[in-house]
């Protein structure tokens, strides 16, 4: 077949610029890649490297200020860059379909789901409305949505995030396109929902022979979905090749650095410490001469790397594996990373903070337009845990499980509905933050998810830290506080000059460091970190995480680390608490929680996390359905609507009785009706092949 020989999509030396009033921003430069029929190509790289711009370039939808400044994009041999509007319209939706990040925003809020779906074939194939709706119904079934007739008649806002994303996928598939572009299709979704969507996309693409361009910053996800991979850095492709080939024999310093900055399972802190990429991503108009990665590269050689434009060179010996590194044949790719001094794990001390039977119920107001009675949202039900000095307790669970509510109750931003929180022997659950004294406030601090929102944009960094010191009543003179502020900057490894800078002059990672400095300003005993790195780029995450841990070790602080990223959790925590629908379903040491026996939910959660390591085999457990709403939780075990182990439990115990948080061994406790024997039959989710 000659057809297999012509690529579906062939991008050659593509350059795309955005034109602002002051300058031209070259977002993509000299980018080439090829997608063969039926192939899935992954596009990875940090935020701002130009992934979305490439995708929109292929759709020729760059907005008013974006323009293709060079190169060609050929789709089945036809050049897209020179097509007219009419021809483009014929292509969009029918031949090439695109799915992007936020599902809710991609659906028209004022149109029924069915109408939005049916529109696609009505535009392109001029089929009748009835036929189009019939096809929409079939495709809704294809994307495994329950009750298709109801869904077709629904408004987008009546669906959950996962359901909306399935509708967006259905819409893309309505006219059986030959190329599907997916731009971070699951970033806004929970891992267990993500796993379902990814499975679906892969199956459907296989079924219809669709080629894919899959954009993600999640290396594990790309490994799951794609056959080939293209790593982008600052507008350029720096390494392309077969996914497994690239993942096991990476041939570009950036790819390597990217991998070393994310935690992988099967390797612990001392064997494979996280290595952050030094420095920052260059802005498009501030790129260095020669190799873009030069200033951050460990293998940089002056005079060669910065002397000329670096071309794509064949790498690794395998066909179609290329790297944009001039020293690709000289570098010893198997050299282990320089080991940072690893610290001995600190033995945990006495219990510092303890929660017992803690509950937080919210009463939702009936809303502006009335209707019905007030509903009770049980955001936290029966939370029991304790954490010791110098210990890191990770709190994991999907969105809506009550992690952030718990943090708010601990911080006094909300008062508990029932139960107790004890800090150093004092009960604080009923003390709102305004009634807490400076000593209490300074000893219990928080680092927030979004470093952008928590700093006052009009105050200098130094002034904000000094302000925190004043609130904590630390230091006895202005000079003393100034001195302490400079020490805090040292502590979080920011240059002292930063004291006089405004937040907008700082990068995301630097802002988060300021947030950490403030939290530790009063020598906090307990720090609650709510997703402290999830808003940051992967290359920066490692540095901030390491910093947090280092300070914690030094001060013997208790760290409550809230996260949905199980990779990081496994890497840094001593103990893990798994939450589901406001319940603690499992708690134990990291080793206990990450290996069998698990709680059935933990098992599913672990199996849903994609792993960017070809040596790892992972059991796939895809959960059915979505997380029930906290407003209307199921009776009995909170997990019973999605549990695959439920049939093993006799009678309707799971549906009617909430299990106890049962002690399995030591501090390992599980909230499940399964017997010890049944739990013992569980197998590990992740296995690392040796060799």
């Amino acid at each position, binding site marked *: 077949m000659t057809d297999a020989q012509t690529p579906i999509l062939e991008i050659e030396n593509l350059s795309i610029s955005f034109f602002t009033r002051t300058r031209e921003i070259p977002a993509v430069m000299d980018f080439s890649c090829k997608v063969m029929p039926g192939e899935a190509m992954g596009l990875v790289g940090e935020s701002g490297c130009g992934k979305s711009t490439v995708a929109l370039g292929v*759709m020729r939808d760059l907005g008013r200020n974006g323009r293709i400044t060079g190169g060609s994009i050929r789709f089945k041999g036809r050049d897209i860059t020179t097509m007219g509007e009419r021809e483009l319209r014929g292509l969009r939706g029918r031949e090439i*379909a*695109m799915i992007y990040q936020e599902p809710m925003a991609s*659906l028209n809020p*004022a149109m029924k789901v069915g109408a939005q779906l049916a529109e696609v074939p009505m535009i392109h194939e001029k089929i009748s409305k009835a036929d189009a709706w019939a096809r929409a119904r079939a495709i809704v079934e294809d994307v495994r949505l329950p009750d298709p007739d109801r869904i077709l008649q629904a408004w987008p806002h009546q669906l959950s995030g996962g359901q909306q994303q399935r509708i967006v996928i259905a819409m893309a598939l309505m006219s059986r396109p030959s190329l599907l572009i997916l731009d971070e299709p699951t970033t806004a979704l929970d891992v267990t929902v993500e796993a379902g969507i990814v499975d679906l996309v892969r199956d459907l693409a296989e079924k219809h022979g669709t080629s894919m361009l899959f954009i993600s910053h999640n290396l594990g996800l790309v490994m799951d979905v794609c056959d080939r991979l293209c790593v982008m850095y600052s507008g350029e492709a720096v390494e392309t090749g077969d996914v497994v080939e690239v993942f096991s024999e990476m041939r570009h310093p950036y790819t390597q650095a990217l991998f070393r900055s994310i935690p992988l399972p099967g390797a612990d802190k001392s064997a494979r410490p996280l290595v952050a990429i030094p420095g920052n991503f260059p802005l498009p108009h501030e790129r260095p001469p020669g190799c873009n990665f030069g200033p951050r590269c460990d293998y940089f050689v002056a005079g060669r790397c910065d002397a000329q434009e670096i071309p794509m060179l064949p790498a690794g010996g395998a066909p179609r594996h290329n790297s944009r590194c001039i020293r690709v044949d000289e570098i010893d790719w198997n050299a282990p990373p320089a080991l940072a001094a690893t610290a001995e794990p600190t033995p945990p001390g006495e219990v510092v903070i303890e929660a017992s039977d803690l509950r937080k119920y919210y009463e939702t107001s009936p809303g502006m337009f009335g*209707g019905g009675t007030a509903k009770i949202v049980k955001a936290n039900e029966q939370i029991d845990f304790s954490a010791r000095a110098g210990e890191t307790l990770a709190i994991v669970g999907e969105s809506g499980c009550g992690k952030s509510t718990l943090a708010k109750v601990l911080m006094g931003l909300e008062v508990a509905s029932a139960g107790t929180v004890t800090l150093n022997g004092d009960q604080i659950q009923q003390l709102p933050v305004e009634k807490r004294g400076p000593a209490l406030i300074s000893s219990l601090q928080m680092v927030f998810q979004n470093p952008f929102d928590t700093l006052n944009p009009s105050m200098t960094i130094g002034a904000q830290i000094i302000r925190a010191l004043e609130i904590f009543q630390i230091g006895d003179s202005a000079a003393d506080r100034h001195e302490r502020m400079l020490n805090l900057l040292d502590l979080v490894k920011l240059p002292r000059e930063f004291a006089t800078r405004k937040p907008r002059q700082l990068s995301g990672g630097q802002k988060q460091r300021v947030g950490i400095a403030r939290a530790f300003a009063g020598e906090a005993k307990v720090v609650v970190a709510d997703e402290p790195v999830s808003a940051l780029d992967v290359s920066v995450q490692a540095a901030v995480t390491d910093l947090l841990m280092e300070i914690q070790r030094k001060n013997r602080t208790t760290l409550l680390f809230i996260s949905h990223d199980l990779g990081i959790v496994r890497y840094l925590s001593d103990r893990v608490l798994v939450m589901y629908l406001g319940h603690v379903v499992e708690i134990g040491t990291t080793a206990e929680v990450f290996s069998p026996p698990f709680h059935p939910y933990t098992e599913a959660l672990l199996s849903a996390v994609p792993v960017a390591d070809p040596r790892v085999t992972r059991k796939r457990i895809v959960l059915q359905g979505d997380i029930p709403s906290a407003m209307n939780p199921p009776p009995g075990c909170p997990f019973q609507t999605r549990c695959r182990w439920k049939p093993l439990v006799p009678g309707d115990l799971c549906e009617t009785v909430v299990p106890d948080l049962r002690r399995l061994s030591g501090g390992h406790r599980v909230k499940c009706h399964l017997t010890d024997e049944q739990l013992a039959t569980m197998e590990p989710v992740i296995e690392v092949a040796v060799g």
Partner: protein
Amino acid sequence: MLKFLLRRTLTMVATALVLTFVVFWLTNLPPNLEKLAKSEGNARMTDGEVISWLDRNGHAQPLVKRYGEWLGVAPGWTDERDGVTSGRCIARGAAVEDSPRFCGVLQGYWGQSTVFKAPVSEIIATRLSLTGILMFWVMVLMVPSALLIGILAGMREGSKLDRTLSTVSIATTATPEYVSGVILIVVFSSSMVGLKWFKGTATSAMDGITFENFFLPVLTIALYGMGYIARMTRASMSEVMTAQYIRTARLKGASFGRVVMRHALRNALIAPFTVIMLQFPWLLNGVVIVETLFNFKGFGWTLVEAAGNNDIQLLLGCSVVAVVVVLVTQAMSDVGYVLLNPRIRVS
């Protein structure tokens, strides 16, 4: 929905009470009453005579009582003097027993206009219907053209079309009616320019509307409101056009026309709908000016007459009508918003 409507109505009634009370208080301030006494009784009354006249006609009672009487929730005053019982609810010469105890706005008794020597309710009914006709044509002209201008300008933000239309709409809202009205009269109906297409007065429109005698007043009011609605529509439209779901529609292969008509329009109209309804009270403003300017004897013209001649009952009646119009349009804008926007539609 029912509960929402009920609550909406209750707040509306409360607001109406407060507003009319304020107007009542202002129109019944002592100097106004003194003027009333002098114009009804005798222009050369002494201060003492004024007081006794006010006393005899129920104006000396406490403000709240008088307001209650006017509203029709307190019994009307009676006054027995020289064996003759007079009172608020007792028509001249009628027997006390035949007269109702309450007579206020709620009972349909709106008082007697001192200027027109006719019942206020009658005057308002005829005048309001004239203004209603005017407003109807204003709406017919203003709403579609404003929406059209807004949509055309907003669908391609920053284009030449957008810049032209935006300039026009800013210019029209920035020009008050008394300026645009005069300009229009000068240009289209005076011998100065000589076009003489339309009539400069709308007096004849009260008997029969023609394009010739009615277009200029309608246009004058419409122009003013049009610019504002057009700009709101444009803002809303251009925001919608940058939404993700518009990109989705574009990337489905929908033509530009289809994107605008099927995907953008309904979403873009949610915000201007509210504005159109809220615009209503402002248009009443314009009505006052335009009716006076074109000598069209509608509601606005009546209001000017009443205010100029210290016609307290008529003024009160007019303000009740104005308050009701404002509140009803506001309620309609809320309900319409709910209906247009499926996200907050209640089952």
